[in-house]
């Protein structure tokens, strides 16, 4: 709770010239960072405390299963892993289609712990990977913001990021997903980029490529980096900020980074072949041209230079046109213009809903609503504009990067709710800058107003330090490329500060006049602290209440205490222990990962959704009448069908509510499934007004089979209506398991009837067998002794 305030309080102490105070500031900053790390870790443990140490949701189960495989079989087996438990009968090459960063990270942690004889299970390691990396991410935020606006802003931003709800939603303990490590990798890559930009050190440039490599390993969102950094480089060039440091920051990243990225099997040649990466190459060329021009400019006289420019521009334009034409032709020859569906839906938000229902059907691919912004970043939404303004005074290479980062991520988060996650660090960084600058201004004003407290020398000290913004402004003006001088006390800037000492002294008088009145600054300070407190309260609430549910265990509070709905695991455990190990289970793809991980049974489709036709087949089966569905499933060698039904307890995200997507996806491939057949006057309903197609489809029947016997009326609590068709029999399926709250129902396909050749033969053989059976059983019953 106290972290933002205390970090803000630490700001003045850090900037003193006094060595002891400097050291004290360093130690304080270190401990604040340590506490931020602890807070980032512990705020994510609500899920473990309120529920249990368990893997959450859907995708994490897949990652967990892969990690188990890795821990058991080693890295080489992992790369060559062909998984035959999923996408039956196609299978899936896991090693080549998965971003291995997360699993390798957790696998390495597990291996390290085990070699130290700390016998933690793979599950425990997986559960706590995300909180650990959140702590790393907040430290990386500190480093990044420190490069941009100094230690104070860094600490504030780190504290904000440690508890931003948007990030918590993806990194609570148990949420073992790619994003958990990818956000850290993203921020750290940006930090190293800025660091290289500020120092011009090849060491950091190399580290930057490695961090980028880690990011590529971890998440498909790496394309954001490889597009944002070129954009920033371009921005720097256009605004005349080209320098050799920019070159060092960018060129090694593209060369090394692309080479390293191509090493990741899932990326491979995509790193040079798809449109997502073209921007970086284009900027790479531009950068070289600009560097070359600067070089030529340096060795030629201005007159000669002008001649050379006209010459080169005319030739260069022609070459560029030719190259661009070839590129465009290449890109246009591919059907999706070289862009993957998810990327395209980023550029054109309506793309997915128009063409790819399977992407649109995922809730995290929908555009967010305004309340979700407030929910996910809370007061940061108001602080971001202030932070952007602070970034512009003065505008350095680093702060322009932050501005660009936030601008692009705002757009992306507006397209897909999932990308709020990329937006959150940017919002934290800008808000951290804004808060820190505001605290700076107010505390400085108070100091000036209270000369009794601050001695004259101290005022001087505070003056020189706290007016760094001003001084920095001058520095930047004097030498544009040199900024954030205080962070790197190079000899040059030190000298400069010394030179400017009389200047700042003179400025102090001016500052005294500019300082805010005492009472208003105190009130503003209090208001800011209140804002911070509100943020903390909201974050803790969000972490505890909104984002901690593991979604495989549901709880409800009623007057007689907490009620636990553990139906999913009940069903998976039943499948695991009471079906044959090679049985195939069909369900909608949402439950594929969980079924393979928890029940260890082969599934037809899963959350990977790489094969639309296969999913459409399952969707078609679910929306077909019983016999047709049985034929489809039988052709897929399916033995059990699993449906999720929330009608008895009111669990809203069940298969009936997802059913229209099954129809749409199925209909997209098999045109005999038509969405209007399932809708009455454009309305989706399951009551007595529902269409006969709807009431006869397999999903309806499997969900509501014998439902009427529970309460006599068959009242569906999710749809708040009585169902349309209450009494019906299943002819091709039989119920084999239903969980305690009816949330998961498992049906078995009845075996096909024996083929009968001739009628007479059939009746004969039938009667004979039955009679003999009857005879035997009769005798057996009466007296087992004869």
């Amino acid at each position, binding site marked *: 709770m106290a972290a933002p305030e205390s970090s803000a309080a630490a700001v003045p102490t850090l900037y003193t010239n006094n060595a002891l105070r400097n050291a004290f500031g360093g130690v304080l900053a270190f401990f604040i960072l340590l506490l931020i790390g602890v807070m980032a870790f512990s705020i994510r443990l609500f899920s473990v405390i309120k529920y249990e140490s368990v893997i959450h949701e859907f995708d994490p189960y897949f990652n967990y299963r892969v990690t188990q495989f890795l821990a058991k079989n080693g890295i080489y087996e992992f790369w060559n892993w062909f998984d035959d438990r999923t996408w039956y009968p196609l299978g899936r090459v896991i090693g080549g289609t998965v971003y291995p960063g997360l699993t390798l990270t957790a696998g390495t942690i597990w291996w390290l712990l085990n070699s130290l004889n700390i016998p933690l299970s793979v599950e425990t390691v997986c559960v706590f990977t995300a909180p650990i990396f959140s702590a790393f991410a907040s430290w990386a935020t500190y480093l990044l913001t420190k490069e941009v606006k100094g230690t104070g802003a860094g600490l504030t931003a780190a504290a904000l990021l440690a508890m931003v709800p948007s990030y918590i939603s993806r990194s609570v303990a148990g949420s073992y997903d790619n994003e958990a490590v990818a956000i850290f990798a993203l921020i750290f890559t940006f930090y190293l980029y800025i660091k290289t930009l500020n120092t011009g050190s090849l060491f950091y440039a190399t580290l930057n490529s490695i961090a980028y490599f880690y990011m590529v390993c971890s998440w498909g969102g790496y394309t954001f980096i490889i597009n944002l950094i070129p954009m920033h480089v371009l921005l720097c060039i256009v605004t005349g900020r080209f320098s050799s440091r920019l070159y060092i920051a960018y060129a090694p990243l593209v060369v090394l980074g692309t080479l390293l990225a191509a090493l990741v099997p899932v990326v491979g040649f995509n790193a040079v072949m798809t449109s997502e990466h073209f921007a970086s190459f284009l900027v790479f060329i531009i950068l070289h041209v600009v560097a070359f021009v600067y070089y030529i400019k340096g060795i030629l006289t201005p007159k000669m230079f002008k001649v050379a420019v006209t010459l080169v521009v005319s030739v260069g334009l022609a070459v560029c046109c030719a190259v661009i034409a070839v590129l465009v032709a290449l890109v246009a020859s591919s059907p999706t213009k070289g862009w993957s569906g998810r990327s395209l839906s980023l550029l054109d938000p309506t793309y997915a809903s128009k063409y790819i229902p399977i992407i649109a059907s995922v809730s995290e691919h929908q555009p967010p609503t305004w309340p979700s912004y407030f929910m996910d970043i809370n007061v940061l939404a108001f602080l971001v504009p202030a932070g952007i303004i602070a970034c512009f005074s003065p505008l350095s290479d680093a702060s322009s990067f932050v501005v660009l980062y936030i601008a692009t991520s705002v757009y992306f988060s507006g397209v897909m709710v999932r990308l709020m996650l990329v937006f959150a660090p940017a919002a934290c960084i800008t808000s951290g800058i804004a808060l820190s600058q505001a605290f700076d201004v107010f505390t400085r004003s108070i100091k000036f107003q209270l000369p009794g407290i601050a001695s004259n020398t101290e005022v001087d000290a505070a003056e020189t330090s706290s007016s760094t913004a001003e001084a920095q402004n001058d520095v930047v003006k004097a030498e544009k490329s040199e900024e954030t001088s205080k962070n790197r006390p190079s000899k040059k800037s030190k000298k400069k500060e010394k030179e400017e000492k009389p200047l700042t002294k003179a400025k102090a008088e001016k500052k005294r006049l500019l300082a805010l009145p005492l009472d208003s600054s105190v009130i503003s300070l209090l208001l800011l602290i209140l804002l911070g407190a509100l943020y903390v309260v909201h974050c803790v609430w969000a972490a505890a209440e909104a984002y901690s549910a593991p979604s495989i265990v549901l709880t409800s509070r009623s007057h007689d205490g907490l009620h636990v709905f*553990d139906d999913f695991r009940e069903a*998976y*455990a039943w499948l695991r*222990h009471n079906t044959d190990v090679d049985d195939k289970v069909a369900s909608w793809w949402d439950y594929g990962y969980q079924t393979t991980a928890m029940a260890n049974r082969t599934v037809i489709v899963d959350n990977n959704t790489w094969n639309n036709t296969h999913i459409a087949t399952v969707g078609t089966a679910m929306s077909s009448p019983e016999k047709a569905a049985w034929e489809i499933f039988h052709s897929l060698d399916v033995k059990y069908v699993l449906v999720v039904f929330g009608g008895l307890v009111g669990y809203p995200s069940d298969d009936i509510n997802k059913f229209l997507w099954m129809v749409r996806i199925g209909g997209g491939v098999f045109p005999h499934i038509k969405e209007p057949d399932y809708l009455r006057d454009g309305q989706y309903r399951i009551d007595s007004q529902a269409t006969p197609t709807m009431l006869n489809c397999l999903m309806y029947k499997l969900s509501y089979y014998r439902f009427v016997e529970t309460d006599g009326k068959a009242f569906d609590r999710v749809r708040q209506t009585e169902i349309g068709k209450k009494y019906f029999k299943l002819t091709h399926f*039989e119920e084999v398991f239903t969980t305690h709250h009816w949330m998961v129902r498992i049906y078995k396909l009845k075996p096909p009837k024996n083929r009968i050749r001739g009628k007479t033969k059939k009746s004969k053989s039938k009667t004979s067998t039955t009679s003999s059976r009857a005879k035997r059983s009769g005798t*057996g019953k009466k007296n*087992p002794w004869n």
Partner: protein
Amino acid sequence: MEAPIRATEFLRFTLLSLLFFVCRSSPSHDLLISNAERRIDLTSHIVKVYLTLKVENAGSTPTSEILLAFPPTQVDHLATVEALVTKGKRKKTTLARLDVKPTELPDAPNGTKYFTIYLANPLNSGESTTLEVLYLFTHSLEPFPAEIGQSESQLVYYRDSALILSPYHIKQQTTFLKTPSTKVESFTSMEPTNRAGTEMKYGPYEDRPPYSFSPILIHFENNSPFPVVEELVREVEISHWGNLQVTEHYTLVHGGARHKGVFSRVDYQSRPNLNGVSSLRYLLARLPPRVHSVYYRDEIGNISSSHLRTDSRKSELEIEPRYPLFGGWKATFVIGYGLPLQDFLFESSDDRRYLNFTFGCPLLDTVVDKLTVKVVLPEGSKDPSAVVPFTVEQHLETKYSYLDVVGRTVVVMEKKNLVPVHNSPFQVYYTFKPIFMLAEPLMLASAFFLFFVASVAYLHIDLSIRK
């Protein structure tokens, strides 16, 4: 279908062989049993047989060994045999436990297996004594029909002999069988046979020669669930910091008639008395008192349906599997708990330490097919030796746990076919020097110290090339 036929053949065969034995074998012993009464309890899935024998030494030499005979089919399912002798006169009789050991005899007819009871005082000629023998069979009730639907009740066969198999001449014998309910489908009649309520009486039969055998088959209703733990691994970890951590891995199966066809939750929930009567809904585990941090989970996480009741003498953990177990259904789970060390660890007179803990399975009324008890001794303990009241297979292992360097010695004991009678204490003796307790804290402290020294050194060393 085939079972009755096979049973008939079996009957014929045994009758023939019986005749053969009667002709062939002469009473090799001078003992005879003047009166035998056998009570067979069939109410649960563990068959309990109480045998009261009045043994008389008709020979001339004193003997202290009395043989019990079992047919080979029964001996495989025999979990335990106990023998008690009644001492004293009418008023104040006391029971004394006797040694019972399996014995091989060279001329055992038809693969008969023997157990020898060793009397404390030899039985002189002409004397007689009364023995109380208790033995338990597991897996001896064969469900028939072998597969039942959800609403059917479970019927089982029990096979035995109306006459007690014995190498001695039995003057008079009676067998009582107790069934769980009055519903008995059929039973083999061998006059005189009476049936009243839940009890059946075979006998009394007079003057049967040695190795008399007369198979009987009883087909009756037994709706109690048959909880069978196929494999149980108990790991007891001793920490001299004051905790005894017990982890138990169960593979549970319902050993009754296999479930067939549909499982309908609506029937199961609305008519619990008619549907799934033999299903296994919950289990009761009796844990030691002062148990703490109990958990109950399986490989996919915590199982929320359990209740713990503790009082000063015992703790009871009521656990429900994730789903009700029908015949043939399986479930695996783990129970773990901590116990205060001072309740179980003691120092023996010769300066060694010993753990006194309960062997067997804490679940009530369960059969354990295979039990492995692993006692993990603290790192640095030496000379482990286990004292178990019955024969077990033993060997040693090494386990590496938190920050171990040399590893912890694990005493592994394995036993097959256990029943709750086996829940008796066992001891593991070992020597341990308390200084070893400090090894790991010291290691951690020195690691941190080295880290700080390294940090200080790093801060004071200038490795730059240019000055």
